[in-house]
């Protein structure tokens, strides 16, 4: 199965879903130079958010650990450990911060 990411009204094929280790992420380079962080959780569900950590500016969110709390799946930034909800992109430690979310599908 291929993971595809919605970008510019189009579905962009990225990689085979099996490449993603459950619980970890990988980064993808998008045609406009942006970067997406892709994740797969234990149940096989896929997520994509922007790879840029808004607290440091570094493109590293794909290298954080994912976890769940109160039924929400999140990634903790590997730099300063703020958590981001993988479905909404909202930072769980600071209401005023959020990252973009990219819809994903498999084909």
């Amino acid at each position: 199965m291929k993971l595809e990411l919605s970008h510019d009204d189009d579905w962009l094929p990225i990689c085979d879903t099996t490449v993603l280790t459950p619980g970890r992420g990988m980064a993808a380079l998008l045609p406009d130079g942006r970067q997406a962080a892709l994740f797969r959780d234990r149940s096989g569900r896929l997520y994509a958010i922007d790879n840029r950590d808004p607290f440091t500016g570094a493109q590293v969110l794909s290298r954080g650990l994912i976890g769940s709390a109160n039924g929400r799946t999140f990634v903790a930034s590997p730099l300063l450990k703020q958590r981001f909800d993988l479905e909404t992109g909202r930072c769980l430690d600071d209401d005023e911060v959020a990252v973009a979310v990219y819809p994903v599908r498999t084909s």
Partner: protein
Amino acid sequence: MPNTPGAAHTPTIVLVGHGMVGQRFLEALAERGVTGRARVVVLCEEPRPAYDRVQLSSYFSGRTPDDLSMVPEGFMAEHGVELRTGDPAVAIDREARTVTARSGLTVAYDTLVLATGSYPFVPPVPGKDAKGCFVYRTIEDLLAIEEYAKSARTGAVVGGGLLGLEAAGALKGLGLDTHVVEFAPRLMPVQVDEGGGAALLRTVEGMGLSVHTGVGTQEVTVGDDGAVTGMKLSDGSELAADMVVFSAGVRPRDQLARDCGLTVGERGGIAIDERCRTSDPAVYAIGECALAVDGRVYGLVAPGNEMALTAADAIAGRESSFTGADTSTKLKLLGVDVASFGDAHGAAEGCLDVVYADSRSGVYKKLVVDTDGRLLGGVLVGDADAYGMLRPLTGSVPPVSPEQLVLPAGAGAPVALGPESLPDDAVICSCHNVSKGAICEHATLPEVKKCTKAGTGCGSCVKVIQQLLPKTGDGGLCGCFPQTRQDLYEIVQVLRIASYAELLDRYGREEAKGGEGCEVCKPTVASILASLSHGYVLDGEQAALQDTNDHFLANMQRNGSYSIVPRIPGGEITPEKLIVIGEVARDFGLYTKITGGQRIDLFGARVEQLPAIWARLVDAGFESGHAYGKALRTVKSCVGQTWCRYGVQDSVRMAIDLELRYRGLRAPHKLKSAVSGCQRECAEAQSKDFGVIATANGWNLYVGGNGGATPRHADLLAKDLSDAALIRLIDRFLMYYIRTAERLERTAPWVERIGLDHVREVVVEDSLGIGEELDALMSRHVAGYRDEWSETLADPERLARFVSFVNAPDAPDPSVRFVPERGQIKPDLTFLTLEGVSAR
């Protein structure tokens, strides 16, 4: 002119004094939206913005002036506050409504707020200004004391009150023989009663301080060079001292107010009304410089903060008043808990005392109750754990008898009274006047601190706050596991659990079962699995548990690039290997630096470069240095007997042996070690988790040392050991630590927590009979060790993860950029923060 009709006028608020209360006032203005519509100018006498004066003494235990700062980063800019440090106000013209600063600047104000604090009172004795005389109030005072103490051996503190004892503790900590001279018949006369003073005296003397009570200071004696030589006391005796610290009370700084004709109290203090206005309604006074309507000048932060809020309310047009405050305090002086609250001296008519005293342990507790059984106040010395609970109960009838409240646990006392039993309006944090109800609206300590400020003053309420918060405050590792790390270690070992998922689904909290876990427990469990199973840490499910550093076997830096630290056992390295490191760094354009751990760090590698870099290093005989893991870091060495004229053993060989034995060992936190060739200790072994110092007869083993933010000298565990005996003790020490320590607990706090005696019993005397089991675990570790980087390079599947982009494996990450500095590179951070949204 203020409020010229018709013209748009931005009112100006001038704050004089940027101390603890001044800063609280600025925050209160911001919270009330006043900073948005008024110009705020702050004249600050000290060279730095407001800092935590209450925690001043912690400078001597390693907190830097920056750590003590009370101003949130970016605060002044965000709220448009104009702060002028090092520029005190020198005159106020109330008619013209202007303030003039020392720099000559004159500011017109609509509202003026004085928060000038107090100055230390120095009794007018001859010699008081001699070289070697100090006061204890500002960071600058502490810096001066620290510098002077370098050439001093004996110190005397004038004043045995709260601050005097803090100053005495500081002098003692600087290595001086220390005397305390107190005019009253007991220590801390304001806070504690006679019995409490006696308990305090025993404990303080037990710490090696000399206390002289009931005597005054008559003269500071001065030598020919103009420096202090000692003191003459009122009983005719003399005391030799190289330096003197005056801590005989404080006086309100009200001179500015006097000079411009504001009303001041007979014994000082700027008189204010209930809204904190002085005799001129355009001028407010708050904090230690103010004389409140109840006729008191408060020398504590909590009442000062309340005044700050009251003044801010008045300026914002809100109703509130300050009529007086509670002067309860809890302090940790020289490691002794001292607390007093409410009517501590039993001044109310017809009140009764309930006293518990144990002179052997230096514990004294007194509660004052009225005839109806209402708690009025109390004094606690030596054991003040109950303070957080008792203070909020003041004024009400406690749910259990007062006797039960003072008896130590186990002496017929019932189960300790928990904070659940407090009413909702009980004030838990007296520094910021926050009630139990307000605290219970929040879920975590950081949230409580952010939203209510509770716990951000003296900190004495934090324990009770934690008890009030919903669990994970149950001691569990995190929101996923109710067990501690030690419990999990036992479960994994005994039940031979091999995977994180199995552990979570069987032993996790109900609500966490089947979930993803979290960033706290995943690496912890990964470390336990690695300690016990010795597999390659990157395989299978374990790959998903490791922090990014362990995952890529390198340390992530602020711009997303990585650093590389090859192992250099004992710090010994051949010229050939040095050349290889140099060549690799040059060829890949890496920044190089010698670390504090006697090895070389190479910075600035992108993920996809790591394998190529390591291929070169492994080829030259290097191994992973585990700078990324909670694992053994380095065993530092001094040059030792081989070269050094003083050395008595071969410290380099021993350091290399130890480093090779324990390399790769996963632990609750990182492990550091060092070996010195003689007592001169050039390798700093006594600051390490396990340190070894050579003796004529073998080796001395020290454990539980730590540098870092809370330095601790290691304790001597055993003396004059042979090579074999040394290694056996270290094996057992490390394995016992790995088994019983909590997550991220270095050996220093671990030894403090379980006690050195206990460690010695288990490790040296094998009191638990687990010695052989610990030996076996270590043998398995040593036999099973393999270099993680060689293994990674040999396996294409493992190498697959080292790409920047899954959909463009050969593309470098364009966001990792560098700029030159001093002939090398550094991260281009402006580039990172420029991109689209700004970084926060």
